[in-house]
């Protein structure tokens, strides 16, 4: 085949490139470039009209200069001129320049779009492809507006050339991704699905990407693609290695298309039609069989292409998670790869097995490979492979192998790459807790963790060990003994001192009988670490000391001595000084009874989601954590409370507990010694004084936090259609109009409160879906009986002081203006209480922000010019007109707040798309404040009249 000879085409360009390459220094290069720029500028400005060739050459040089990293501020017009040339090479350079130097210069966009339009209608396939590639590469909103309706037509027209169809399909995909609202489904959609049957494999390859994307967004509309994809796949898989000619790659028939087909199928559940399903299972079996056949070529390309299909097939098998036979076969195949000489395959097998470990059908099969995986953790050279091995050990861990896996992970930690230590520590901590049958093993493991990798042990980990020790009295004595021993080491990590201080302060009495760990020995041991520790740890130790005074009255004199010395009582750190002063006074003035009450042992922590699990999830992103789920059921809702209720619930309750303690302790001091300082800076030392919520707690503003002594007793989660007729029908006066309006621009807070009940909400929205957590708190000390809400069952009894939680899943089917109502009934004493509340679900919750330029904004604004599309209100400011507050509110609304759009900088403009199940409604908003008059003018334009009206009503009350 003839090849391109070097430098053909544009001689001047080749010379220029050579010159640049010959430049000895950066300065020389810049000099040469500036000379060229001056030359090009003069040619473009000259009187003599340039011919197409010269124009192409100069534009190409400009492009080269730009790609070298220099700014180009001219030549755009010449590039646009090239677009209308009828010579391919000139047109190509023009389009390339435009695609690389995207510029939303509004004047030019019009010209560019015009040229594209001409090429699209030229019926010349080469020109059509150039134009389509340009749209696909730029993908701007303007282009979407101009061509989103034209391209589907080209794609499905009977007389369109194959290569044009390929480009049109992917061009449309790009527009659909950037401006989904502009690509309207229509008659073309059903015909697109049938491109899966196209004779030309290239067309199928391109079209399937579009179909996959459309299926993800509109699964029902596209579900016919499943059977078509299965039969296409079946034809490829069963073909001989030469049947597909052009599309056979190293003896593998159509590997990329096969992968794309398998991936499309992963958007859907297993086919319901038995015949289709049977055919698909046959395909998957054939793929697994082929993996066992001797290779048709020794080339790595052959095995890679074959295995690309195999891994995609395994992904599909895991996605279905319903064919035990296939799952086990997949696992065995991956097991072979674990020892393959190709590092790539070992890596991918470890990765893929991780997901297999979470299926109940293959979990056991995965476990059989434990030795190989442990070996990989020890011997792999590539750290990313070792990391996958660690992930897999974590995923395959269950009660039967936990001790072995944890031990291996611990020993790996000693030499592990720094980049993965923190994650490893979290994983070890989670497994140790999850599979702890005897808690002494758990305590040993965590202390080992601190010893081996103390720097990587985050707060969550050591908080957690303390929570567990506090909550389980069978392990407290052992924990005290073990930390006492661990602290004997001459150099121990500060985290060890923290855990040691805490645990001895609480449970040192359990080992005090042994003269080797008598109270004074314990105190001296802790205090020997004191001077090497940071301020927070010292603060913690001071609290441990005052606890000692209560536990062991015989240490009182020694400890008071310590507290009284200048380095404590006059410490330059205000926190330490204050603790020393107050503890000293407390210990000298308070009676034994008061001391015993104030310094009582910590009550158990509420069981919530493990703080470390939350931390790991946060680290890896949602969905990335694969705790073997088989065990979750048995463990009885480790995840209760919901992962979204603040990742640090445990830590939070710890610090709340501190606040409570501080309050009481300080008021004691206030009463006894008239101390006027009341501030007690935050510390994480979870002593709690009492466990029933007291009204005084509210003074510290913690009432909206979960009550400490009261665990959420119920967590229901059913999908409730809150928009069904039953919902908003009853117009019984809702009592919370004010509360309701406060939630238009925010998602969390207290929805309602009276003397009996407080209702907090937290909510989150994504596209047309939302989830709302309702927290019902009983403010009284008496039980509420027969507690019901309209939506679904909750725990019928709400104890005094307790809080229950309810989760609502919300789906926005169409736009709406009435808020759903929530009816609550319960008995308090003898009286039936009946409440009807508007749930703060408003149409703006389903906004997706849309960024756009000034030009786009006003163009869209003009397009929405029908009188009923606009809603306007002029109203007096209800609140201050502070810019930052306004901005925060507008952002809370859910739209994008657009800067530099409105010519008047005082005005605010926003844009967004409301996502409902059935449609998307584009919305533009303009808010014009008039500071002098303290008035606003609010204008909304939406593609749907009712939405403009509703948003205007809602918003007019917000500013």
């Amino acid at each position, binding site marked *: *085949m003839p*090849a*391109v000879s*070097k430098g053909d085409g544009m001689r001047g360009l080749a010379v220029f490139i050579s010159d640049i*390459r010959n430049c000895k220094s950066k300065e020389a290069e810049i000099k040469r470039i500036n000379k060229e720029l001056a030359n090009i500028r003069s040619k473009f400005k000259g009187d003599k009209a340039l011919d197409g060739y010269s124009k192409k050459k100069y534009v*190409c040089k400009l492009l080269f200069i730009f*790609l070298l*990293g220099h700014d180009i501020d001219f030549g755009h017009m010449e590039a646009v001129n090239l677009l209308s040339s009828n*010579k391919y*090479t000139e047109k*190509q*350079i023009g389009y*390339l320049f435009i*695609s690389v130097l995207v510029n939303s210069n509004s004047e030019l966009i019009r010209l560019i779009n015009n040229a594209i339009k001409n090429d699209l209608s030229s019926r010349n396939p*080469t020109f059509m492809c150039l134009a389509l590639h340009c749209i*696909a590469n730029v993908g701007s909103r303007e282009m979407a507006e101009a061509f989103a309706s034209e391209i589907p037509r080209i794609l499905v027209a009977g007389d369109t050339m194959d290569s044009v169809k*390929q*480009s049109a399909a*992917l061009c449309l*995909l*790009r527009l659909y*991704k950037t401006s989904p609202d502009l690509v309207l489904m229509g008659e073309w959609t059903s015909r697109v699905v049938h491109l899966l049957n196209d004779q030309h*494999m*290239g067309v199928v*390859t*391109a079209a399937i*990407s579009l179909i996959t*994307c459309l299926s*993800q*967004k509109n699964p029902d509309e596209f579900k016919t693609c499943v059977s078509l994809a299965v039969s296409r796949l079946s034809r490829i898989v069963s073909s001989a290695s030469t049947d597909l*000619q*052009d599309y056979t*790659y190293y003896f593998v028939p159509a*590997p*990329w298309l096969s*992968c*794309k087909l398998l*991936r499309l199928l*992963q*958007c859907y559940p297993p086919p319901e039609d038995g015949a289709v399903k049977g055919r698909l299972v046959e395909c998957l079996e054939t793929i697994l069989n082929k993996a066992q056949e001797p290779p048709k070529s020794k080339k790595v*390309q052959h095995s*890679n*292409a074959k295995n*690309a299909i195999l*891994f*995609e097939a395994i*992904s599909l098998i*895991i*996605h279905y998670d319903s064919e035990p036979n296939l799952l086990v076969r997949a696992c065995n195949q991956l097991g072979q790869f674990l020892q393959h000489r190709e590092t*790539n395959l070992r*890596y*991918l097998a470890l990765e893929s097995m991780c*997901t297999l470990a*979470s299926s109940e059908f293959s979990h056991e099969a995965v476990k059989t490979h434990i030795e190989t995986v442990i070996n990989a953790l020890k011997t792999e*050279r*590539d750290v*990313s492979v070792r990391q996958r091995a660690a992930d897999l050990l974590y995923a395959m861990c269950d009660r039967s192998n936990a001790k072995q896996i944890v031990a291996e992970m611990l020993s790996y930690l000693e030499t592990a790459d720094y980049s993965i230590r923190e994650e490893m520590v979290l994983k070890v901590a989670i497994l140790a807790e999850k599979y702890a049958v005897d808690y002494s093993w758990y305590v040993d493991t965590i202390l080992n963790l601190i010893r081996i990798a103390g720097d990587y042990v985050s707060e969550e980990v050591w908080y957690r060990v303390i929570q567990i020790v506090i909550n389980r009295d069978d392990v407290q004595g052992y924990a005290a003994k073990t930390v006492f021993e661990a602290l004997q080491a001459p150099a121990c990590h500060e985290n060890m001192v923290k855990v040691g201080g805490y645990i001895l302060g609480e449970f040192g009495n359990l080992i005090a009988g042994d003269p080797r760990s008598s109270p004074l020995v314990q105190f001296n041991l802790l205090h020997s670490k004191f001077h090497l520790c940071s301020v927070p740890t010292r603060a913690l130790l001071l609290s441990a000391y005052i606890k000692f005074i209560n536990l062991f009255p015989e240490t009182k004199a020694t400890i008071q001595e310590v507290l009284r010395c200048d380095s404590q009582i006059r410490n330059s750190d205000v926190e330490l000084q204050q603790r020393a002063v107050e503890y000293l006074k407390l210990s000298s003035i308070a009676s034994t009874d008061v001391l015993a009450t104030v310094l009582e042992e910590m009550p158990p922590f509420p069981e919530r989601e493990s703080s470390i699990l939350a931390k790991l999830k946060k680290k890896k992103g949602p*969905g990335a*954590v694969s705790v073997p*789920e088989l065990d979750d059921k048995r463990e009885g809702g480790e995840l209760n409370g919901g992962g979204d209720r603040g990742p640090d619930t445990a830590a939070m309750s710890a610090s709340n507990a501190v606040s409570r303690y501080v309050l009481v302790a300080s008021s004691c001091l206030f009463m006894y010694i008239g101390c006027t300082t009341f501030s007690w800076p935050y510390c994480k030392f979870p002593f709690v004084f009492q466990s029933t919520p007291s009204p005084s707690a509210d003074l510290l503003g913690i009432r909206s936090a979960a009550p400490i002594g009261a665990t959420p007793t119920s967590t229901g989660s059913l999908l409730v259609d809150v928009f069904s007729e039953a919902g908003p029908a009853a117009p019984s006066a809702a009592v919370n109009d004010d509360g309701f309006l406060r939630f238009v621009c925010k998602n969390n807070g207290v929805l309602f409160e009276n003397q009996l009940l407080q209702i907090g909400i937290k909510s989150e929205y994504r596209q047309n879906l939302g989830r709302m957590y309702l927290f019902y708190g009983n403010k009284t000390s008496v039980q509420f009986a027969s507690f019901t809400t309209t939506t679904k069952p909750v725990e019928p009894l709400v104890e005094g002081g307790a809080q229950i939680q309810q989760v609502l899943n919300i789906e926005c089917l169409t736009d709406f203006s009435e808020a759903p109502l929530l009816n609550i009934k319960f008995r308090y004493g003898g009286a039936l209480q009946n409440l009807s509340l508007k749930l703060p679900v408003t149409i703006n919750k389903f906004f997706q922000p849309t960024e756009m330029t000034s030009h786009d904004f006003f163009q869209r604004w003009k397009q929405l010019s029908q009188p009923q599309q606009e809603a306007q209100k002029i109203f007096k400011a209800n609140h201050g007109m502070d810019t930052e507050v306004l901005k925060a509110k507008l952002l809370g609304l859910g739209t994008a707040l657009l800067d530099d759009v409105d010519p008047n900088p005082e005005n605010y403009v926003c844009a967004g798309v409301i996502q409902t199940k059935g449609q998307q409604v584009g919305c533009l908003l303009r808010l014009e404040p008039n500071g002098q008059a303290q008035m606003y003018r609010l204008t909304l334009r939406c593609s749907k009249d009712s939405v403009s009206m509703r948003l205007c009503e809602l918003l007019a009350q917000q500013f």
Partner: protein
Amino acid sequence: AICRPGGSKCRDLNYIRFILIQNRAGKTRLAKWYMQFDDDEKQKLIEEVHAVVTVRDAKHTNFVEFRNFKIIYRRYAGLYFCICVDVTDNNLAYLEGIHNFVEVLNEYFHNVCELDLVFNFYKVYTVVDEMFLAGEIRETSQTKVLKQLLMLQSLE
């Protein structure tokens, strides 16, 4: 289920974010972006990719985690061909996608070398657009791509 393997794939995340060809010194020979980045960000990405890829040796995998994505790369003589995709994407399919692309370049430029990519940079973009478009694989048949390229070559 905490982690449904299929679930994560059903997001419209699976597409090529960018394709980079760099030499060992870090000079870019092709940069094709399928996601919006501003110029500074592009430069940063180019430098980061160079840093993570060049330290790896032949015993390492051809995949490397990169921010929230992953880079699939292969080295040919002094050139690194890198494709940045979503973490759930099919590694081997893209690895061979690179090789298929390289074989086309090799045929088209008749034993391609780095200088061909420098002097004919504007043609390399055409080759890329024939094989990858909108971050997706457009055409995989070498015969079809080369036929089309030669047809274009014959046009004025």
